[in-house]
């Protein structure tokens, strides 16, 4: 029973091969047959024998029968040629089937390494980020306080005074720091002192140096 099934399968396969050699098979069948023939020595022998039959029929007077080692001879001669070997090795290096998974693995490993490094970097950056969040929070608070301080109407020296009249020094360091960075218009005494400095500077400054003079004039004219 099994033998019959095998025989039928072989017959069908050989019949396909016969049609394949005559270029009378469908595309799909052709590709399948090519795959089979390339790996099956028995089918390859059939190809040789069927070709011999056709050749003998076409050359009724005489027909040389090719030796079975004909193909091996070609292989041997090709292998013996250094140029061929070089090309073959190059091809193998480019297209060998085992190299493809290795390439895939290398790519996957690289991606994994990058991912791990990125995670580690993120971990290291967490405190910094926390600090930055804290700073951002502080800055938000400071901004709110600065808005309050912007309501300052009079400035006693550099001591900021809140609009509600409470003193900014001592208890609230943040407020003091913020006020140091906040622009306040100088009082009259300071303005007079700055004017005197600018005038002296202009008087004794070298006439060949343009920039200090420009700066001094510019500063003075602002007020």
């Amino acid at each position, binding site marked *: 029973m099994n033998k019959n099934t095998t025989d039928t399968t072989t017959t069908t396969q*050989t019949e396909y091969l016969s049609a394949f050699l005559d*270029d009378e098979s469908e595309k799909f069948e052709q590709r399948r047959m090519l795959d089979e023939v390339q790996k099956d020595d028995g089918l390859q022998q059939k*190809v040789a*024998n069927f070709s011999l039959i056709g050749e003998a029929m076409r050359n009724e007077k*005489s027909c*040389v029968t090719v*030796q079975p080692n*004909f193909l091996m001879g070609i292989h041997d001669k090709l292998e013996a040629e250094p140029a061929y070997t070089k090309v073959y090795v190059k091809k193998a290096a480019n297209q060998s089937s085992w190299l493809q998974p290795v390439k895939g693995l290398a790519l996957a490993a690289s991606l994994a390494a990058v991912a791990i490094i990125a995670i580690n970097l993120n971990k290291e950056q967490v405190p910094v980020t926390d600090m930055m969040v804290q700073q951002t929070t502080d800055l938000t608070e400071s901004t709110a306080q600065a808005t309050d301080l912007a309501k300052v109407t009079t400035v006693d020296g550099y001591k900021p005074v809140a609009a509600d009249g409470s003193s900014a020094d001592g208890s609230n360091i943040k407020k003091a720091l913020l006020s140091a960075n906040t622009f306040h218009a100088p009082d009259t005494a300071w303005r007079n002192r700055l004017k005197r400095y600018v005038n002296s500077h202009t008087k004794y400054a070298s006439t060949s140096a343009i920039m200090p003079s420009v700066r001094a004039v510019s500063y003075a004219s602002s007020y």
Partner: protein
Amino acid sequence: MGTSQTDMELVRRVQAGEKNAFDVLVLKYQQRVVNLVMRYVRDQHIAMDIAQEAFIKAYKGLQNFRGDSAFYTWLYRIAINTAKNHLVTMSRRLPANDIDAQEAEQFESADGLHERATPESEMQKDEVHRAIIESIEALPDDLRTAITLREIEGFSYEEISEAMDCPIGTVRSRIFRARESIETKIGPLMD
């Protein structure tokens, strides 16, 4: 012959690096190439060497083959040139005119090109050849007609089905059965 599709697929595979696809091309055409070369050199062993050299040249040049002509036409041209080069090397007298692949296949009386055959090689080739011819003569009419129309006349399956007034599937089956029957007879001689 109409074998270009299969051959082109094989060529594409070889060009893609499937070395054993070339083996199929060799097995398919080795007989024809050797018989073609035998029109130039009578010695069977020399003919085999030249045919092998032609296949090697074809393999090396296959990357540049673009399919402008059929593969076998290209291959036969290589084989003829290789045979001629051999004759030049051996200081043999070349034919005055070039012979292209198809002409060479049709060329029946090329005795002037031949080296002398040895009785041994004549006997070797005749044995299988005779067995094949006898097997064909012994085939039932429908099988013999089908395979003759295919191999000698070069008809397609469709043309054979019209000539024999039967479905294409039947033609396919008849040609296959004819080949199988002949192969069974020559099998012992091939071992």
